[in-house]
């Protein structure tokens, strides 16, 4: 799948003067429109920053509307008349809002049904998303537990019944419907008097349907996680969903306070808020890593085979992390625009690997040093190498650097110790490899190789 770019244009006054449909929709949902000031606070702040610095910036973008949280990457190019926006890797995840009867377009989960029931668990709505199994006839008014045969969780409990008694949201209710294993999640609904009126939610075809999945719902045994329930995919998904939203909000709010966007505050308070944002980003990174880990270790995990250019991806990675390097006075020698290395791999995953390699290089390089990124081709392999002037890794460490949770004795808050492990797993999932070549005092050279293709 090729990367889709969403474009927009902001004029000198900060008004959005043109926008591709997704951006325009977001602006409209925020209560504005074309020729109105940009109503997405994070994006507006990034635009203001780019205009103040008089230079291109590439940053992660977090936005939200009534229905979904949106994560994307934005590149802002300021000019005399305003700024151009290029947004890529647009990802949305739904935010359940009990009182709003809309599940956003972005929440279209493949192979799912949307449903609603009243306070007695009688179904009043059932719709199938595209590609979902057909909904059974005669569902109208039937009991939820009649249509969906409820199955207990590991503790022998039924999340939906528990939620009914607590009048609260639930997820991970395993059910069988028309012979299909599904996972039910729902949000409690209330009327204007605060009276509980039922649930609305999704029924998603369970991944256990896949033949490769071990049967019996047992916890996957993982030597690294031991007996922790983190090795249970369902638990992992719950934790992922439960943590990501609050953490994103903590980060966004802390950044707002730290940047004093809503007015001046004491400098030490602003600094504390900056610390909170930093810690939040670290935790979010850990959640991302754990989610990735579960995903790539899932039986049957496959990466897409996009037509990519390692040169282009390396330049994108530099664009995203260039500011971070500048903060340490590090110079990045990136591939030139005509340096191309056509390859096959999943666009997003390769970018993820490169961001990890470049992020590590920046983190562990001394101030005012240099990082080189080179692309090359050897036979049927396209390669990209990230080299730094850090302290280097000895042979013993090289043997374990790709191990899970391996941080080579470091105890700072820099990472989870999962990044390189995930990066190598991803490389191998794309029929590639990730290797390191280093010596103490001589920096490190990480090379990602992927199947080359002819341009």
């Amino acid at each position: 799948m090729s990367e889709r770019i969403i474009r927009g244009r902001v004029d000198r006054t900060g008004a959005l003067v043109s926008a591709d449909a997704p951006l325009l929709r977001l602006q409209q949902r925020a209560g504005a429109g074309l020729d109105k000031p940009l109503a997405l606070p994070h994006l507006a702040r990034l635009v203001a920053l780019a205009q103040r610095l008089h230079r291109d910036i590439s940053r992660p973008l977090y936005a939200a509307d009534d229905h979904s949280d949106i994560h994307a990457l934005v590149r802002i190019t300021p000019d005399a008349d305003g700024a151009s926006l290029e947004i890529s890797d647009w990802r949305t995840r739904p935010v359940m809002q009990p009182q709003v009867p809309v599940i956003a377009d972005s929440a279209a989960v493949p192979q799912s049904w949307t449903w609603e029931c009243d306070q007695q668990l009688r179904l009043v709505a059932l719709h199938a998303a595209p590609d979902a199994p057909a909904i059974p006839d005669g569902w109208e008014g039937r009991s939820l537990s009649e249509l969906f045969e409820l199955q207990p969780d590991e503790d022998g409990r039924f999340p939906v019944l528990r939620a009914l008694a607590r009048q609260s949201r639930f997820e991970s209710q395993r059910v069988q419907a028309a012979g299909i294993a599904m996972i039910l999640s729902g949000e409690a609904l209330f009327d204007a008097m605060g009276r509980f009126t039922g649930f609305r939610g999704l029924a998603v075809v369970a991944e256990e349907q896949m033949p490769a999945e071990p049967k019996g719902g047992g916890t996957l045994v993982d030597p690294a996680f031991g007996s922790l329930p983190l090795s249970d995919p369902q638990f992992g998904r719950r934790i992922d969903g439960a943590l990501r939203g609050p953490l994103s909000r903590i980060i966004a709010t802390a950044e707002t306070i730290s940047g004093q966007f809503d007015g001046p505050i004491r400098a030490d308070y602003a600094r504390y808020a900056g610390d909170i944002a930093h810690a939040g980003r670290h935790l979010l990174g850990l959640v991302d890593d754990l989610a990735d880990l579960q995903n790539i270790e899932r039986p049957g995990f496959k990466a897409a085979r996009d037509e990519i250019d390692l040169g282009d991806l390396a330049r994108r990675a530099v664009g995203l992390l260039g500011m971070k390097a500048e903060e340490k006075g590090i110079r990045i020698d990136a591939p030139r625009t005509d340096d191309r290395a056509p390859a096959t791999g999943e666009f997003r995953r390769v970018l993820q690997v490169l961001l990890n390699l470049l992020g590590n290089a920046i983190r562990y390089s001394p101030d005012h040093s240099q990082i080189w990124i080179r692309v090359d081709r050897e036979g049927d392999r396209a390669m990209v190498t990230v080299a730094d002037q850090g302290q280097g890794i000895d042979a013993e460490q090289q043997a374990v650097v790709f191990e899970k949770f391996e941080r080579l004795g470091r105890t700072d808050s820099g990472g989870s110790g999962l990044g390189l492990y995930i990066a190598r797993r991803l490389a191998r999932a794309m029929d590639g490899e990730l290797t390191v070549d280093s010596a103490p005092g001589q920096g490190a050279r990480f090379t990602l190789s992927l199947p080359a293709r002819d341009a």
Partner: protein
Amino acid sequence: MSDSVFSPGIDPPSPTLSARLRELAGYLAAPAAGRLTEEQRALSLGVARRLVADVAARLDPRIDPGLLWNEWLRGGLPCTAQLAGICFARAEEHRWREQSGQRTSPPPVLSEPETAHADARAESVPLSDIDRAYLALQIADRRRFDALGNPALAIADLDGETFRALLLEIAAWRLAEVSEDTRRAADLGDAVRVAIERQAGETGMAHAGHSYYEILGAALPGAAAAAIARHNWPTLIALAASAHRRAYDDMAIALLTAETAALPSLLAPLRLDHAALAPLEVSLVMLPARAVADVSSDE
């Protein structure tokens, strides 16, 4: 093309000069008049798009609704007189419901229950006739959303004339597409007839609302007052429509555009006391960019 992918129709068009001049002439003719907000336009257009896709699917599942819609977006929608009323009514009702939903008081916090208690709560209770009628009304109402919860019109709720007109327009468009295939063109005629017969036999909000209204009897004022207190606007509209023997969408727009002073007379058949109307009055007043009924309008 899947429903969730094709354009919702709010992409800014490239205007022609004549279109811009017509727009300006209309503006100059009444510069002080309020106009549709972008949200109202987008919601109404979205409702129309889903309706067109639903009707097209009923006529022939092989019709690409995205292609049809994009062509109509460029050339203008047919049946605009009929579509404007029903789409605007549905869009405004949706805005009203969303506003009420967002202002709903937080739910009570309940303590951790015992599992046994939870199990007991889930046991089904036999339905009374009133409950059964109310359940049917809820089901009819939820049919007026698409799979993603966006507002839509149920085909069963359309009046026969509007459905027929729209169906014929889509059939004409399809005919132009398949004209070289005489067999498929002939099938299209049959499909139109079958679709019209099927729609005529379907029941929607009007029927469900009327059944609920009939079965309530003396409990009508209480049920209507509860609907207002709970901001359950579809139930209120359905009851009022039955009491006035008006169509649901017609009643919805009458209520949504009513001046505050007109509400007591409009809802008189529901035998509500004046205090019960207060949440309704407040909710309508708070709805931004609300249209107000023309002076010449009946009721």
